[in-house]
């Protein structure tokens, strides 16, 4: 989807946290990216590197935490695993599946230096 805007979004969260929690540098950022999230990890890492130059997160390492994709199939009336957004139910093939998890794009935690 939009990796440059996302990288800028991550940096803004880091800068806000730095003011709030009083730290000067970020060394590691753990990002929770769901299996169904519309983001390319390599592109995000590339953009993050570009966007953080000269900032408190310059040189920081990105660690990705996976979360699985899940949905509620209305035809089967049960929860199913989803490997891709807008996919059919793996059991019955119906497209009437409501996504219940796996689209997250969150900053989980940071390792910082005071």
């Amino acid at each position, binding site marked *: *989807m*939009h990796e440059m*805007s*996302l990288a*800028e*979004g*991550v940096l*803004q*969260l880091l*800068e*806000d*946290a*730095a*003011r709030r*929690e009083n*730290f*000067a*540098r970020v*060394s*590691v950022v753990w*990002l929770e990216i769901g299996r169904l999230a*519309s983001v390319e990890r390599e592109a995000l890492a590339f953009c993050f590197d570009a966007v953080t130059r000269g900032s*408190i997160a310059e*040189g920081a*390492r990105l660690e990705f935490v996976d979360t699985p994709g899940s949905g509620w199939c209305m035809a089967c009336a049960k929860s199913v695993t989803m490997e891709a*957004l*807008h996919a059919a139910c793996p059991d019955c093939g119906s*497209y*009437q599946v409501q996504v219940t998890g796996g689209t*997250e*794009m*969150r*900053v*989980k*935690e*940071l*390792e*910082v*230096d*005071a």
Partner: protein
Amino acid sequence: MCTTCGCSSGETRIEGDALDYVHTHEHSHAHAAAPAYAPAHSHTHYARGPAHAHAPGLSRSRMVSIEQDILAKNDAYAASNRKHLAERGIFALNLVSSPGSGKTTLLVKTIEMLKGRLPIAVIEGDQQTSQDAERIRATGAAAIQINTGKGCHLDAHMVGHAFEKLPLPEGGALMIENVGNLVCPAAFDLGEAHKVVILSVTEGEDKPIKYPDMFAAASLMLLNKCDLLPYLSFDVDQVIAYARRVNPDIQVIRTSASSGEGMDDWLAWITVGVADAVAARC
């Protein structure tokens, strides 16, 4: 960078002015004056490796929990925009499509038919030029142009700033014509009531399944340029089936700005939305 609130505005211009020129700050931004960070301490050791590799006592590393969505900032600006609009009983629509679908022509026709019946104003988004805003202003409606420069979508921060320069249509409709792009705008909430996706019949029936995020995010699909159907082998039932596969609740109106087909249904849809916004005014 926006010097008042510290938000990144890149090359965005609103009516030619860079964003840090415009600040009146009536709407809420979470911001604080940027602090002067203390220079890094004199250790050459920076923890780049895993946490357990630190020599205890040498570095002052610690973990900070964030647990926030990456798009949290945009969502906060969008919520602020939504509240600003609700207080004024304004029905706002985010019009999205590929370039060349006929959005601006449809909008011009819509304004001509709505004139005198409803207050209406437009926020235009393009990488460059103010041609679209000028076309809208020629109808007599107020319009403001946002140029994103290299950006490929409008975001809530830009739209919030545009509110400062536009006479907002209280008790009426605000049309936000997004940058022509069937991918990126899908993820950016601007504070609108609905996204409306415009797909023209010259674009192919498979677009809803090729660009599912956009069609899933939209409440209404306007199938535009229907006057051209006799000259095309375009399967209308197929495009609607694909759109409903990706979004079972999507409504569909067949339109043509040139022939007028579907315009009454589209105007009725807008009018109902405005009535709801006015009734809910807080």
